[in-house]
């Protein structure tokens, strides 16, 4: 019996693939979703354990996940096994690619911070000349942001500032600010910096994943089939029409090779995996831009201060606790003079403690210091925007294949003086603000993690109006092949300081509605 031809094949099931399935099935299109990983039952797959009840006392098997700083022995099985799906890089250019391969992808585990990008990012080239403008603005994405915020149930505080656009928020009860948060807020405000609050996706029942917010409705239409454990090797092309007509995939367990047919292919495998698939398929690269402009955010810079009145557990009630969020506050005005372009957001958390390395002590002397400052610390950390660079790219390394014989990515990404200068400015600014509150600096670093660490890797498949300088058009559609779409973070032109999920989802929603309309009108 012949197998079905679907209207749309969706590759990947995280927030972007889930959004595509949600929209396309509601529009009446038949969809097949393939995901490389197995399905997870979170209720069954997790159990509370004491660290001593794990083989390595909770300290992780040494060397198991060298690129995943976030890994510990409790969560080690969440991440993609680097031996199973390797990637390569020059040892002098480290890259931390942090991946999840389950149905739902990283949407099962994300941090849920949900900030809109603004025209300071969409039209960045007009402001600082770093990178290019997106072919869309905040106004184009605004209605899709609003609907995505409703799905995710984002709570936030409205500020009325165009560089930190407000959203369709649930009322958030942040409670009264602690006196330390008030103090640092006053200091920042006096410098002209906006101070706001975290904007977070509440989701439902403690989960804000594709698997509980997007896919169930799509399945309920009867128009979606989801096949896990299906690792796509390549997109296939009809020789007569020159258009994509499906994909070849490998069964994760048996390694049997199968082919599926579809009128349209939507890639949603995560920026770099979608790009890897296109490169391995030899598609969508007439511009030569596929794989270029890989970006993510600069994380790690940190300044820690101790509040004298709060030491020794003596903080009165209401002094410590809570956070202050400073949305990007540098280079907002054209022509502002700084040692770097673009900007960084800053989070200042009240109530933490120091780590042992802040003191040249050990044993009882060290413990006394740790106890003295426990709960009395203010910790500033940043979300920095990296500059898009043509040279920062991924290519296929034909010499290395994954466990299914698929050639892997070679990542060639490095930081430049702009990133180092931004980190230094952020550390100095944080130190200066914390000191002026009368607090003692315990630790300051302008060091930061290698690229990839933020798990916000975007770009490599960027959108634009010019087919010579971009891979996708402003509808996330390949310039080269009109029935091929990439709806994950690959399309980003700049990465912003903002966590990328909300923007990825809003773009996926917009692209999917366009695709459905185009299919309805017969244009595709």
């Amino acid at each position, binding site marked *: 019996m012949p197998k079905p031809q679907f209207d749309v094949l969706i590759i990947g099931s995280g927030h972007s693939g889930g959004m595509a399935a949600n929209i396309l099935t509601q529009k009446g299109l038949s969809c097949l979703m393939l995901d490389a990983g197995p399905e997870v039952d979170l209720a069954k797959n997790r159990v*509370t354990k004491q660290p001593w009840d794990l083989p390595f006392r909770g300290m992780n098997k040494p060397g198991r996940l060298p690129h995943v700083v976030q890994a510990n022995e409790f969560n080690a099985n969440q991440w993609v096994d680097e031996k199973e799906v390797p990637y390569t890089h020059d040892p002098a250019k480290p890259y931390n690619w942090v991946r999840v391969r389950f149905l739902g992808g990283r949407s099962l585990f994300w941090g849920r911070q949900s900030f809109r990008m603004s025209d300071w990012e969409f039209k960045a080239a007009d402001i600082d000349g770093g990178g290019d403008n997106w072919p869309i603005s905040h106004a184009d994405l605004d209605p899709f942001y609003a609907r995505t915020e409703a799905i995710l149930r984002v709570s936030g505080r409205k500020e009325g500032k165009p560089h930190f656009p407000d959203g369709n928020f649930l009322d958030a009860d942040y409670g009264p600010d602690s006196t330390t948060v008030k103090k640092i807020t006053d200091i920042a405000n006096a410098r002209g910096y906006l101070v706001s609050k975290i904007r977070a996706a509440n989701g439902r029942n403690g989960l804000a994943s594709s698997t509980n917010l997007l896919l169930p409705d799509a399945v309920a239409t009867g128009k979606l089939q989801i096949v896990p454990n299906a690792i796509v090797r390549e997109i296939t092309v009809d020789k007569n029409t020159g258009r994509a007509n499906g994909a070849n995939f490998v069964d994760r367990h048996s390694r049997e090779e199968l082919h599926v047919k579809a009128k349209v292919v939507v890639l949603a495998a995560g920026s770099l995996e979608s790009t890897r698939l296109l490169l391995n398929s030899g598609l969508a690269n007439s511009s030569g831009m596929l794989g270029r402009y890989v970006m993510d955010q600069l994380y790690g810079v940190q300044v820690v201060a101790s509040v004298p009145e709060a030491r020794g557990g003596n903080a009165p009630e209401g002094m410590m606790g809570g956070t202050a969020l400073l949305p990007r506050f540098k280079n907002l005005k054209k022509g502002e003079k700084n040692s770097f372009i673009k900007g960084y957001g800053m989070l200042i958390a009240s109530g933490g403690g120091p*780590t042992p*390395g802040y003191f040249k002590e050990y044993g009882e002397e060290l413990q006394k210091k740790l106890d003295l400052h426990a709960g009395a610390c203010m910790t500033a950390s940043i979300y920095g925007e990296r500059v898009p660079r043509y040279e920062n790219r991924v290519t296929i390394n034909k010499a290395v294949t994954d466990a299914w014989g698929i050639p892997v990515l070679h990542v060639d990404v490095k930081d430049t003086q702009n990133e180092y200068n931004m980190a230094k400015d952020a550390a100095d600014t944080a130190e200066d603000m914390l000191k002026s509150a009368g607090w003692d600096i315990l630790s300051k670093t302008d060091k930061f993690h290698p690229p990839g660490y933020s798990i916000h890797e975007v770009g490599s498949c960027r959108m634009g109006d010019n087919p010579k300088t971009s891979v996708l058009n402003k509808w996330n559609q390949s310039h080269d092949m009109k029935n091929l779409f990439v709806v994950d973070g690959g399309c980003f032109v700049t990465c912003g300081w903002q966590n990328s999920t909300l923007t990825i989802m809003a773009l996926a929603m917009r692209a999917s509605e366009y695709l459905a309309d185009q299919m309805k009108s017969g244009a595709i």
Partner: protein
Amino acid sequence: MRTLAAAPAVPAALVPTALVPAAVISEQAAQAQTPAARPAGAPVANGKRDAVGEPVARFFTQSQLSALRRLSELFMPPMNGNPGALEAHVPEFLDFYVGQSPAEHQHLYRSGLDLLNTRATKQFGKPFASLDAKQADAIIKPMMELVPWEFELPKDPAARFIAAANNEIRTATRNSQEWYAATVAAGRRPVGAQQYFFPVDPIYKG
């Protein structure tokens, strides 16, 4: 047990042991079901490795291990009613842990422990393990550097070893079964438990 018994859809005995809280298991054991009442194949294991076994050192040389024992005692003595590193068998655990580690980490420890012995012999004419607290301090303190960012240890090998050992001795002590037991015995709430994520559908090996 009552709640489980009231849920006929999932017979209690079919719930895998690992998913059942320890308190439920002990209650289950206390009920002393007769073998005939238990479904065939029901799990019976009720012990925990670290509650019964002492780790045996196999990786470090005797002089390295002796230095590690002394260092562990100094870095994490018994404090505030909690066990110290020696009570928590940390040197023997680290012998295992470092023995499993990448070559770079193994070299860091071996050369670091050797360095402690070399300097002790040079300054005091005896191995590090035999130094009193003041003498040991004269060796350790000059080796220490501040670590403002926990993700990057000092480049100097001696300082790097001290920073790594301090972190790992402290963590292995606080994560030990002995630390947990002492916390429970003192009527305090144990910290450190987290959600462990099982391997999901591992690749079929045939």
